[in-house]
Protein backbone atom coordinates (compact mmCIF):
# COMPACT_ATOMS: atom_id res chain seq x y z
CA UNK A 1 0.00 0.00 0.00
CA UNK A 2 3.04 2.32 0.04
CA UNK A 3 2.23 3.58 -3.48
CA UNK A 4 -1.17 4.78 -2.25
CA UNK A 5 0.36 6.68 0.64
CA UNK A 6 2.93 8.14 -1.73
CA UNK A 7 0.16 9.33 -4.04
CA UNK A 8 -1.74 10.66 -1.03
CA UNK A 9 1.34 12.56 0.13
CA UNK A 10 1.78 13.95 -3.35
CA UNK A 11 -1.87 15.00 -3.31
CA UNK A 12 -1.54 16.73 0.04
CA UNK A 13 1.57 18.63 -1.01
CA UNK A 14 -0.15 19.67 -4.23
CA UNK A 15 -3.16 20.84 -2.22
CA UNK A 16 -0.89 22.82 0.09
CA UNK A 17 0.74 24.49 -2.87
CA UNK A 18 -2.64 25.34 -4.42
CA UNK A 19 -3.91 26.79 -1.16
CA UNK A 20 -0.82 28.97 -0.78
CA UNK A 21 -1.14 30.17 -4.38
CA UNK A 22 -4.83 30.96 -3.84
CA UNK A 23 -3.95 32.78 -0.62
CA UNK A 24 -1.41 34.93 -2.42
CA UNK A 25 -4.01 35.61 -5.09
CA UNK A 26 -6.62 36.47 -2.45
CA UNK A 27 -4.29 39.09 -1.08
CA UNK A 28 -2.87 40.65 -4.20
CA UNK A 29 -5.58 40.51 -6.90
CA UNK A 30 -6.87 43.86 -8.04
CA UNK A 31 -10.51 42.88 -8.70
CA UNK A 32 -12.08 42.37 -5.28
CA UNK A 33 -14.54 39.74 -6.51
CA UNK A 34 -11.71 37.61 -7.87
CA UNK A 35 -9.88 37.77 -4.57
CA UNK A 36 -13.06 36.78 -2.73
CA UNK A 37 -13.22 33.69 -4.97
CA UNK A 38 -9.56 33.00 -4.28
CA UNK A 39 -10.46 33.08 -0.59
CA UNK A 40 -13.19 30.51 -1.32
CA UNK A 41 -10.48 28.39 -2.94
CA UNK A 42 -8.31 28.73 0.14
CA UNK A 43 -11.19 27.72 2.42
CA UNK A 44 -11.98 24.62 0.36
CA UNK A 45 -8.26 23.78 0.30
CA UNK A 46 -8.06 24.08 4.08
CA UNK A 47 -11.11 21.81 4.34
CA UNK A 48 -9.17 19.37 2.17
CA UNK A 49 -6.28 19.63 4.61
CA UNK A 50 -8.59 18.69 7.48
CA UNK A 51 -9.71 15.68 5.45
CA UNK A 52 -6.07 14.73 5.00
CA UNK A 53 -5.77 14.85 8.80
CA UNK A 54 -8.84 12.60 9.18
CA UNK A 55 -11.00 15.35 10.65
CA UNK A 56 -13.95 14.82 8.28
CA UNK A 57 -16.53 16.43 10.53
CA UNK A 58 -14.42 19.54 10.81
CA UNK A 59 -13.87 19.69 7.05
CA UNK A 60 -17.61 19.51 6.39
CA UNK A 61 -18.35 22.11 9.06
CA UNK A 62 -15.67 24.34 7.58
CA UNK A 63 -17.22 24.13 4.12
CA UNK A 64 -20.73 24.57 5.46
CA UNK A 65 -19.94 27.62 7.59
CA UNK A 66 -17.14 29.30 5.72
CA UNK A 67 -17.86 28.57 2.10
CA UNK A 68 -21.62 28.48 2.54
CA UNK A 69 -22.21 31.43 4.83
CA UNK A 70 -19.15 33.66 5.35
CA UNK A 71 -18.37 33.77 1.65
CA UNK A 72 -21.97 34.76 0.90
CA UNK A 73 -21.61 37.51 3.48
CA UNK A 74 -18.38 38.77 1.95
CA UNK A 75 -19.79 38.68 -1.58
CA UNK A 76 -22.92 40.51 -0.47
CA UNK A 77 -20.69 43.17 1.10
CA UNK A 78 -18.62 43.45 -2.07
CA UNK A 79 -21.72 43.81 -4.20
CA UNK A 80 -23.20 46.50 -1.97
CA UNK A 81 -20.06 48.57 -1.79
CA UNK A 82 -18.85 48.43 -5.37
CA UNK A 83 -20.46 49.65 -8.56
CA UNK A 84 -21.11 46.79 -10.99
CA UNK A 85 -17.88 46.38 -12.94
CA UNK A 86 -16.10 49.30 -11.34
CA UNK A 87 -12.60 49.76 -12.65
CA UNK A 88 -9.90 47.77 -10.91
CA UNK A 89 -8.22 50.35 -8.75
CA UNK A 90 -4.85 49.77 -7.12
CA UNK A 91 -5.50 47.59 -4.13
CA UNK A 92 -2.48 48.00 -1.99
CA UNK A 93 -1.25 51.14 -0.34
CA UNK A 94 2.16 52.65 -0.09
CA UNK A 95 3.66 50.49 2.57
CA UNK A 96 3.38 47.34 0.50
CA UNK A 97 7.17 46.90 0.50
CA UNK A 98 7.44 47.12 4.28
CA UNK A 99 4.53 44.72 4.67
CA UNK A 100 6.30 42.20 2.46
CA UNK A 101 9.55 42.55 4.36
CA UNK A 102 7.77 42.17 7.71
CA UNK A 103 5.93 39.06 6.58
CA UNK A 104 9.07 37.50 5.10
CA UNK A 105 11.02 38.23 8.29
CA UNK A 106 8.26 36.66 10.34
CA UNK A 107 8.29 33.52 8.20
CA UNK A 108 12.06 33.14 8.36
CA UNK A 109 12.30 33.45 12.14
CA UNK A 110 9.25 31.33 13.04
CA UNK A 111 10.03 28.78 10.32
CA UNK A 112 13.55 28.35 11.62
CA UNK A 113 12.35 27.77 15.16
CA UNK A 114 9.63 25.34 14.02
CA UNK A 115 12.01 23.37 11.88
CA UNK A 116 14.53 22.81 14.67
CA UNK A 117 12.27 21.97 17.62
CA UNK A 118 11.84 18.19 18.09
CA UNK A 119 8.03 17.90 18.27
CA UNK A 120 6.90 15.22 20.77
CA UNK A 121 5.04 13.19 18.13
CA UNK A 122 3.24 10.33 19.85
CA UNK A 123 2.50 7.30 17.67
CA UNK A 124 -0.85 6.30 19.16
CA UNK A 125 -2.16 9.89 18.77
CA UNK A 126 -1.54 9.54 15.05
CA UNK A 127 -3.42 6.31 14.69
CA UNK A 128 -6.30 7.04 17.11
CA UNK A 129 -9.56 7.27 15.23
CA UNK A 130 -11.72 10.19 16.28
CA UNK A 131 -15.18 10.23 14.78
CA UNK A 132 -17.94 12.79 14.85
CA UNK A 133 -19.70 11.04 17.70
CA UNK A 134 -16.70 11.38 20.03
CA UNK A 135 -16.55 15.04 19.05
CA UNK A 136 -20.24 15.51 19.83
CA UNK A 137 -19.91 13.64 23.08
CA UNK A 138 -16.95 15.71 24.28
CA UNK A 139 -18.70 18.87 23.11
CA UNK A 140 -21.63 18.00 25.32
CA UNK A 141 -19.66 16.80 28.34
CA UNK A 142 -16.33 18.57 28.90
CA UNK A 143 -16.99 21.66 26.78
CA UNK A 144 -20.64 22.32 27.51
CA UNK A 145 -19.98 25.76 29.09
CA UNK A 146 -18.14 27.25 26.08
CA UNK A 147 -20.84 25.71 23.89
CA UNK A 148 -23.54 27.69 25.71
CA UNK A 149 -21.46 30.85 25.78
CA UNK A 150 -20.79 30.67 22.05
CA UNK A 151 -24.57 30.39 21.55
CA UNK A 152 -25.10 33.65 23.42
CA UNK A 153 -22.20 35.31 21.60
CA UNK A 154 -23.60 34.33 18.20
CA UNK A 155 -27.04 35.57 19.23
CA UNK A 156 -25.57 38.93 20.28
CA UNK A 157 -23.61 39.14 17.02
CA UNK A 158 -26.76 38.40 15.06
CA UNK A 159 -28.61 41.32 16.59
CA UNK A 160 -25.58 43.58 16.56
CA UNK A 161 -24.89 43.05 12.86
CA UNK A 162 -28.47 43.81 11.94
CA UNK A 163 -28.65 46.92 14.06
CA UNK A 164 -25.36 48.28 12.71
CA UNK A 165 -26.16 47.62 9.10
CA UNK A 166 -29.74 48.85 9.18
CA UNK A 167 -30.49 51.24 6.35
CA UNK A 168 -33.27 53.32 7.91
CA UNK A 169 -31.71 54.09 11.26
CA UNK A 170 -34.40 54.79 13.93
CA UNK A 171 -35.37 58.44 14.47
CA UNK A 172 -33.35 59.05 17.60
CA UNK A 173 -30.09 57.56 16.37
CA UNK A 174 -29.56 59.85 13.39
CA UNK A 175 -27.96 63.01 14.83
Amino acid sequence: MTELTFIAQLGIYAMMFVVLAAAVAAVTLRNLFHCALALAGVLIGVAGMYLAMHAEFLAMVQILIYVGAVMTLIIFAIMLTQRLGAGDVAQNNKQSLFGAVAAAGFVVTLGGILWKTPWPVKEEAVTSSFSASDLGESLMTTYVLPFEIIAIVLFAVLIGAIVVARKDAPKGAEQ
Partner: protein
Amino acid sequence: MDQLFVGIKTALLSMLGTFMPDWLVTVHSVLISATGIAIFGPLTMMYLTLIERKVVARMQNRLGPNRVGKFGLLQPVADGIKMLTKEDIVPYKADKLLHLLAPITIVVPALMVFAVLPFGRGMIAADLNVGILYFLAVSSTTTISIFIAGWGSHNKFALLGAMRAVAQMVSYEVPMVLSLVPALMIAGSLSTGAIVAAQAERWFAFTPWGFVAFIIFYLCGVAEVNRSPFDLAEAESEIVAGFHTEYSGMKFALFYMAEFMNTFTISALAATIFLGGWHGPFLPSWFWFLLKTYILIFVMIWFRGTLPRLRIDQLMGLAWKFLLPMALVNVVVAGFWYMSSGVIRTFGSIACLVVAFMVLTALNRPYVPEKREYTFAEN
Protein backbone atom coordinates in the same frame (compact mmCIF):
# COMPACT_ATOMS: atom_id res chain seq x y z
CA MET B 1 -31.48 -9.23 -8.89
CA ASP B 2 -30.98 -7.21 -5.76
CA GLN B 3 -27.20 -7.35 -5.80
CA LEU B 4 -26.98 -7.02 -9.60
CA PHE B 5 -24.77 -3.95 -9.77
CA VAL B 6 -22.70 -4.93 -6.75
CA GLY B 7 -22.11 -8.29 -8.41
CA ILE B 8 -21.01 -6.63 -11.63
CA LYS B 9 -18.59 -4.46 -9.77
CA THR B 10 -17.05 -7.28 -7.74
CA ALA B 11 -16.73 -9.38 -10.89
CA LEU B 12 -14.98 -6.52 -12.64
CA LEU B 13 -12.68 -5.99 -9.68
CA SER B 14 -11.74 -9.63 -9.41
CA MET B 15 -11.10 -9.69 -13.13
CA LEU B 16 -8.87 -6.62 -12.79
CA GLY B 17 -7.24 -8.08 -9.69
CA THR B 18 -5.71 -10.93 -11.63
CA PHE B 19 -3.15 -8.79 -13.44
CA MET B 20 -2.98 -5.67 -11.23
CA PRO B 21 -1.32 -4.91 -7.85
CA ASP B 22 -3.95 -4.73 -5.15
CA TRP B 23 -3.54 -1.00 -4.47
CA LEU B 24 -4.39 -0.34 -8.09
CA VAL B 25 -7.52 -2.47 -7.66
CA THR B 26 -8.75 -0.26 -4.82
CA VAL B 27 -8.15 2.75 -7.04
CA HIS B 28 -10.17 1.03 -9.74
CA SER B 29 -13.04 0.22 -7.41
CA VAL B 30 -13.32 3.93 -6.68
CA LEU B 31 -13.07 4.61 -10.40
CA ILE B 32 -15.84 2.16 -11.26
CA SER B 33 -18.31 3.67 -8.81
CA ALA B 34 -17.26 7.14 -9.96
CA THR B 35 -17.92 6.29 -13.61
CA GLY B 36 -21.17 4.67 -12.56
CA ILE B 37 -22.28 7.95 -11.07
CA ALA B 38 -20.81 9.98 -13.94
CA ILE B 39 -22.99 7.97 -16.35
CA PHE B 40 -26.08 7.83 -14.13
CA GLY B 41 -26.09 11.57 -13.29
CA PRO B 42 -26.35 13.13 -16.75
CA LEU B 43 -28.59 10.25 -17.91
CA THR B 44 -31.18 10.92 -15.22
CA MET B 45 -30.88 14.61 -15.95
CA MET B 46 -31.59 14.09 -19.66
CA TYR B 47 -34.60 11.92 -19.07
CA LEU B 48 -35.87 14.12 -16.25
CA THR B 49 -36.19 16.97 -18.73
CA LEU B 50 -38.29 14.72 -20.95
CA ILE B 51 -40.40 13.39 -18.06
CA GLU B 52 -41.00 16.92 -16.84
CA ARG B 53 -42.15 18.17 -20.23
CA LYS B 54 -44.38 15.15 -20.79
CA VAL B 55 -45.99 15.25 -17.33
CA VAL B 56 -46.60 19.01 -17.35
CA ALA B 57 -48.03 18.65 -20.87
CA ARG B 58 -50.38 15.87 -19.83
CA MET B 59 -51.57 18.03 -16.97
CA GLN B 60 -52.43 20.75 -19.45
CA ASN B 61 -54.32 18.36 -21.75
CA ARG B 62 -51.69 18.28 -24.44
CA LEU B 63 -49.27 15.57 -25.55
CA GLY B 64 -45.76 16.81 -24.88
CA PRO B 65 -42.79 15.99 -27.11
CA ASN B 66 -43.47 12.88 -29.20
CA ARG B 67 -41.86 13.75 -32.53
CA VAL B 68 -38.22 12.85 -31.91
CA GLY B 69 -37.84 9.12 -31.40
CA LYS B 70 -40.63 6.65 -30.49
CA PHE B 71 -42.49 8.53 -27.72
CA GLY B 72 -40.16 11.52 -27.80
CA LEU B 73 -37.53 9.34 -26.15
CA LEU B 74 -34.75 10.86 -28.22
CA GLN B 75 -35.87 14.39 -27.34
CA PRO B 76 -33.13 14.83 -24.69
CA VAL B 77 -30.52 13.79 -27.26
CA ALA B 78 -31.95 16.38 -29.66
CA ASP B 79 -31.89 19.02 -26.90
CA GLY B 80 -28.31 18.10 -26.08
CA ILE B 81 -27.17 18.45 -29.67
CA LYS B 82 -29.04 21.73 -29.98
CA MET B 83 -27.35 23.01 -26.81
CA LEU B 84 -23.94 21.93 -28.07
CA THR B 85 -24.30 23.54 -31.45
CA LYS B 86 -25.82 26.80 -30.18
CA GLU B 87 -23.47 29.78 -30.26
CA ASP B 88 -21.98 30.65 -26.89
CA ILE B 89 -22.32 34.42 -26.44
CA VAL B 90 -20.25 36.13 -23.75
CA PRO B 91 -21.50 39.67 -22.99
CA TYR B 92 -19.09 42.42 -24.01
CA LYS B 93 -18.11 43.94 -20.69
CA ALA B 94 -18.65 40.72 -18.74
CA ASP B 95 -15.91 39.13 -16.75
CA LYS B 96 -14.72 36.27 -19.00
CA LEU B 97 -13.26 34.24 -16.14
CA LEU B 98 -16.32 34.50 -13.93
CA HIS B 99 -18.68 33.89 -16.81
CA LEU B 100 -16.96 30.60 -17.48
CA LEU B 101 -16.43 29.70 -13.82
CA ALA B 102 -20.10 29.89 -12.80
CA PRO B 103 -21.48 26.90 -14.70
CA ILE B 104 -18.53 24.76 -13.65
CA THR B 105 -18.88 25.58 -9.97
CA ILE B 106 -22.62 24.82 -10.11
CA VAL B 107 -22.31 21.42 -11.78
CA VAL B 108 -19.44 20.08 -9.68
CA PRO B 109 -21.34 20.15 -6.34
CA ALA B 110 -24.42 18.77 -8.10
CA LEU B 111 -22.36 15.75 -9.18
CA MET B 112 -20.38 15.45 -5.94
CA VAL B 113 -23.56 14.96 -3.96
CA PHE B 114 -24.28 11.68 -5.73
CA ALA B 115 -21.42 10.05 -3.84
CA VAL B 116 -23.36 9.92 -0.61
CA LEU B 117 -26.72 8.60 -1.90
CA PRO B 118 -27.47 4.96 -0.96
CA PHE B 119 -28.75 3.60 -4.29
CA GLY B 120 -29.28 0.12 -2.93
CA ARG B 121 -28.12 -2.46 -0.41
CA GLY B 122 -24.37 -1.98 -0.31
CA MET B 123 -24.46 0.44 -3.27
CA ILE B 124 -23.19 3.65 -1.70
CA ALA B 125 -20.26 5.18 -3.52
CA ALA B 126 -18.73 6.59 -0.34
CA ASP B 127 -20.39 5.72 2.96
CA LEU B 128 -18.92 8.66 4.87
CA ASN B 129 -19.80 8.74 8.53
CA VAL B 130 -20.57 12.43 7.98
CA GLY B 131 -22.85 11.68 4.99
CA ILE B 132 -25.68 14.13 5.61
CA LEU B 133 -23.32 16.92 6.65
CA TYR B 134 -21.35 16.31 3.43
CA PHE B 135 -24.59 16.69 1.50
CA LEU B 136 -25.49 19.95 3.24
CA ALA B 137 -22.00 21.39 2.92
CA VAL B 138 -21.71 20.62 -0.78
CA SER B 139 -25.19 21.84 -1.62
CA SER B 140 -24.53 25.10 0.24
CA THR B 141 -21.58 25.91 -2.01
CA THR B 142 -23.92 26.42 -4.96
CA THR B 143 -24.88 29.82 -3.52
CA ILE B 144 -21.43 31.10 -4.48
CA SER B 145 -21.73 29.88 -8.05
CA ILE B 146 -25.09 31.59 -8.39
CA PHE B 147 -23.41 34.78 -7.23
CA ILE B 148 -20.60 34.34 -9.72
CA ALA B 149 -23.16 33.80 -12.49
CA GLY B 150 -25.06 36.92 -11.51
CA TRP B 151 -21.96 39.09 -11.11
CA GLY B 152 -20.06 37.64 -14.06
CA SER B 153 -22.70 38.32 -16.67
CA HIS B 154 -22.64 42.08 -16.06
CA ASN B 155 -26.40 42.39 -16.45
CA LYS B 156 -28.89 44.01 -14.09
CA PHE B 157 -31.44 41.23 -14.35
CA ALA B 158 -28.82 38.57 -13.73
CA LEU B 159 -27.55 40.37 -10.64
CA LEU B 160 -31.10 40.88 -9.37
CA GLY B 161 -31.87 37.22 -9.98
CA ALA B 162 -28.68 36.16 -8.24
CA MET B 163 -29.47 38.30 -5.19
CA ARG B 164 -32.96 36.84 -4.99
CA ALA B 165 -31.75 33.27 -5.49
CA VAL B 166 -29.10 33.56 -2.79
CA ALA B 167 -31.45 35.22 -0.33
CA GLN B 168 -33.93 32.41 -0.93
CA MET B 169 -31.37 29.61 -0.68
CA VAL B 170 -29.80 30.94 2.48
CA SER B 171 -33.14 31.44 4.19
CA TYR B 172 -34.37 27.95 3.19
CA GLU B 173 -31.20 26.21 4.26
CA VAL B 174 -31.90 26.87 7.94
CA PRO B 175 -35.25 25.06 8.17
CA MET B 176 -33.85 22.32 5.91
CA VAL B 177 -31.00 21.57 8.29
CA LEU B 178 -33.28 21.77 11.30
CA SER B 179 -35.81 19.41 9.73
CA LEU B 180 -33.05 16.82 9.34
CA VAL B 181 -32.04 17.01 13.01
CA PRO B 182 -34.83 14.77 14.41
CA ALA B 183 -34.13 12.05 11.84
CA LEU B 184 -30.42 12.11 12.67
CA MET B 185 -31.20 12.19 16.37
CA ILE B 186 -33.34 9.06 16.21
CA ALA B 187 -31.07 7.24 13.74
CA GLY B 188 -28.09 8.14 15.90
CA SER B 189 -25.63 8.70 13.06
CA LEU B 190 -24.93 11.04 10.22
CA SER B 191 -24.13 8.43 7.62
CA THR B 192 -26.89 7.75 5.10
CA GLY B 193 -26.34 4.01 5.26
CA ALA B 194 -26.96 3.98 9.01
CA ILE B 195 -30.09 6.11 8.63
CA VAL B 196 -31.53 3.70 6.08
CA ALA B 197 -30.65 0.80 8.36
CA ALA B 198 -32.41 2.55 11.24
CA GLN B 199 -35.60 2.66 9.18
CA ALA B 200 -35.66 -1.07 8.58
CA GLU B 201 -38.91 -1.85 10.34
CA ARG B 202 -40.55 1.58 10.44
CA TRP B 203 -39.99 4.39 7.95
CA PHE B 204 -39.42 7.76 9.56
CA ALA B 205 -42.19 9.31 7.45
CA PHE B 206 -44.73 7.19 9.34
CA THR B 207 -43.80 8.62 12.74
CA PRO B 208 -45.65 11.88 13.59
CA TRP B 209 -42.49 13.98 13.81
CA GLY B 210 -41.08 12.23 10.73
CA PHE B 211 -44.06 13.17 8.61
CA VAL B 212 -43.79 16.87 9.54
CA ALA B 213 -40.01 16.80 9.08
CA PHE B 214 -40.47 15.13 5.69
CA ILE B 215 -42.89 17.85 4.53
CA ILE B 216 -40.59 20.64 5.78
CA PHE B 217 -37.49 19.05 4.25
CA TYR B 218 -39.24 18.48 0.95
CA LEU B 219 -40.57 22.06 0.74
CA CYS B 220 -37.13 23.46 1.61
CA GLY B 221 -35.60 21.11 -0.95
CA VAL B 222 -37.92 22.44 -3.64
CA ALA B 223 -36.93 25.97 -2.63
CA GLU B 224 -33.21 25.10 -2.57
CA VAL B 225 -33.44 23.90 -6.14
CA ASN B 226 -35.29 27.10 -7.23
CA ARG B 227 -38.17 25.13 -8.65
CA SER B 228 -41.91 25.60 -9.15
CA PRO B 229 -43.68 27.69 -6.53
CA PHE B 230 -40.35 29.06 -5.28
CA ASP B 231 -38.69 29.77 -8.63
CA LEU B 232 -38.46 33.48 -8.03
CA ALA B 233 -34.81 33.49 -9.06
CA GLU B 234 -35.43 32.53 -12.65
CA ALA B 235 -38.94 33.91 -12.97
CA GLU B 236 -39.38 34.34 -16.69
CA SER B 237 -42.14 36.87 -16.29
CA GLU B 238 -40.26 39.19 -13.99
CA ILE B 239 -36.53 39.08 -14.53
CA VAL B 240 -35.93 37.46 -17.89
CA ALA B 241 -34.18 34.27 -16.78
CA GLY B 242 -32.64 35.24 -13.49
CA PHE B 243 -28.99 34.55 -12.95
CA HIS B 244 -28.54 32.55 -16.14
CA THR B 245 -29.85 35.27 -18.45
CA GLU B 246 -26.62 35.85 -20.29
CA TYR B 247 -25.84 32.21 -20.85
CA SER B 248 -26.42 30.29 -24.05
CA GLY B 249 -25.27 27.07 -25.60
CA MET B 250 -23.25 24.66 -23.54
CA LYS B 251 -23.00 26.88 -20.47
CA PHE B 252 -26.76 27.15 -20.25
CA ALA B 253 -26.97 23.38 -20.63
CA LEU B 254 -24.71 23.04 -17.60
CA PHE B 255 -27.02 25.24 -15.54
CA TYR B 256 -29.96 23.18 -16.74
CA MET B 257 -28.13 19.96 -15.87
CA ALA B 258 -27.22 21.23 -12.42
CA GLU B 259 -30.84 22.15 -11.70
CA PHE B 260 -32.17 18.75 -12.68
CA MET B 261 -29.45 16.83 -10.90
CA ASN B 262 -30.18 18.83 -7.76
CA THR B 263 -33.84 17.93 -8.18
CA PHE B 264 -32.88 14.27 -8.33
CA THR B 265 -30.50 14.42 -5.35
CA ILE B 266 -32.93 16.36 -3.13
CA SER B 267 -35.73 13.89 -3.84
CA ALA B 268 -33.30 10.98 -3.40
CA LEU B 269 -32.20 12.30 -0.03
CA ALA B 270 -35.78 12.92 1.07
CA ALA B 271 -36.55 9.33 0.09
CA THR B 272 -33.44 8.04 1.88
CA ILE B 273 -34.03 9.80 5.15
CA PHE B 274 -37.80 9.73 5.44
CA LEU B 275 -39.13 7.03 3.12
CA GLY B 276 -36.77 4.26 4.14
CA GLY B 277 -34.22 4.51 1.29
CA TRP B 278 -34.00 1.16 -0.43
CA HIS B 279 -36.21 -0.76 1.97
CA GLY B 280 -39.08 -2.50 0.24
CA PRO B 281 -40.83 -5.88 0.24
CA PHE B 282 -39.65 -8.05 -2.64
CA LEU B 283 -38.50 -5.86 -5.49
CA PRO B 284 -34.71 -5.35 -5.79
CA SER B 285 -33.40 -2.67 -3.40
CA TRP B 286 -32.12 -0.25 -6.04
CA PHE B 287 -35.52 -0.43 -7.78
CA TRP B 288 -37.25 0.69 -4.60
CA PHE B 289 -34.84 3.58 -4.21
CA LEU B 290 -35.35 4.81 -7.75
CA LEU B 291 -39.15 4.31 -7.53
CA LYS B 292 -39.43 6.43 -4.39
CA THR B 293 -37.15 9.10 -5.82
CA TYR B 294 -39.07 9.34 -9.07
CA ILE B 295 -42.37 9.54 -7.17
CA LEU B 296 -40.99 12.50 -5.25
CA ILE B 297 -39.73 14.04 -8.48
CA PHE B 298 -43.19 13.56 -9.95
CA VAL B 299 -44.60 15.53 -7.00
CA MET B 300 -42.12 18.34 -7.75
CA ILE B 301 -43.23 18.41 -11.37
CA TRP B 302 -46.82 18.28 -10.17
CA PHE B 303 -46.10 21.40 -8.12
CA ARG B 304 -44.80 23.04 -11.27
CA GLY B 305 -47.96 22.11 -13.14
CA THR B 306 -50.32 23.65 -10.63
CA LEU B 307 -48.97 26.24 -8.24
CA PRO B 308 -48.45 29.94 -9.09
CA ARG B 309 -45.21 31.63 -8.06
CA LEU B 310 -44.84 33.00 -4.54
CA ARG B 311 -44.10 36.69 -3.96
CA ILE B 312 -40.71 37.45 -2.43
CA ASP B 313 -42.19 38.42 0.95
CA GLN B 314 -44.45 35.35 1.09
CA LEU B 315 -41.41 33.25 0.16
CA MET B 316 -39.29 34.65 2.98
CA GLY B 317 -42.22 34.74 5.39
CA LEU B 318 -42.89 31.05 4.81
CA ALA B 319 -39.27 30.14 5.50
CA TRP B 320 -38.62 32.23 8.60
CA LYS B 321 -42.06 32.53 10.17
CA PHE B 322 -43.56 29.12 9.42
CA LEU B 323 -41.07 26.41 8.49
CA LEU B 324 -38.37 27.35 10.96
CA PRO B 325 -40.57 27.42 14.11
CA MET B 326 -42.30 24.25 12.89
CA ALA B 327 -38.92 22.53 12.52
CA LEU B 328 -37.89 23.62 16.03
CA VAL B 329 -41.11 22.33 17.52
CA ASN B 330 -40.55 19.14 15.57
CA VAL B 331 -37.13 18.60 17.15
CA VAL B 332 -38.68 18.91 20.60
CA VAL B 333 -41.54 16.57 19.70
CA ALA B 334 -39.10 14.03 18.28
CA GLY B 335 -37.21 14.14 21.58
CA PHE B 336 -40.43 13.61 23.49
CA TRP B 337 -41.39 10.79 21.09
CA TYR B 338 -38.02 9.13 21.57
CA MET B 339 -38.20 9.32 25.34
CA SER B 340 -41.83 8.35 25.90
CA SER B 341 -43.44 5.09 24.86
CA GLY B 342 -46.84 3.53 24.39
CA VAL B 343 -50.02 5.49 23.75
CA ILE B 344 -48.98 8.91 24.95
CA ARG B 345 -46.02 8.69 22.60
CA THR B 346 -47.97 8.96 19.35
CA PHE B 347 -50.99 10.91 20.51
CA GLY B 348 -48.92 13.32 22.58
CA SER B 349 -46.63 14.15 19.69
CA ILE B 350 -49.45 14.38 17.17
CA ALA B 351 -51.37 16.70 19.50
CA CYS B 352 -48.27 18.86 19.98
CA LEU B 353 -47.66 19.12 16.26
CA VAL B 354 -51.26 19.92 15.41
CA VAL B 355 -51.39 22.64 18.07
CA ALA B 356 -48.14 24.12 16.77
CA PHE B 357 -49.49 23.98 13.22
CA MET B 358 -52.68 25.78 14.25
CA VAL B 359 -50.81 28.44 16.23
CA LEU B 360 -48.37 29.11 13.41
CA THR B 361 -51.04 29.33 10.72
CA ALA B 362 -53.03 31.65 12.99
CA LEU B 363 -49.97 33.86 13.45
CA ASN B 364 -49.12 33.91 9.80
CA ARG B 365 -52.35 35.51 8.58
CA PRO B 366 -51.38 36.38 4.97
CA TYR B 367 -51.34 40.14 4.46
CA VAL B 368 -54.57 41.00 2.67
CA PRO B 369 -54.66 44.71 1.75
CA GLU B 370 -57.89 46.32 2.89
CA LYS B 371 -60.58 46.73 0.25
CA ARG B 372 -60.13 50.06 -1.53
CA GLU B 373 -63.25 51.96 -2.67
CA TYR B 374 -62.76 53.84 -5.90
CA THR B 375 -64.72 57.13 -6.15
CA PHE B 376 -65.28 58.14 -9.74
CA ALA B 377 -65.09 61.81 -10.66
CA GLU B 378 -68.55 63.34 -10.76
CA ASN B 379 -68.79 65.55 -13.80
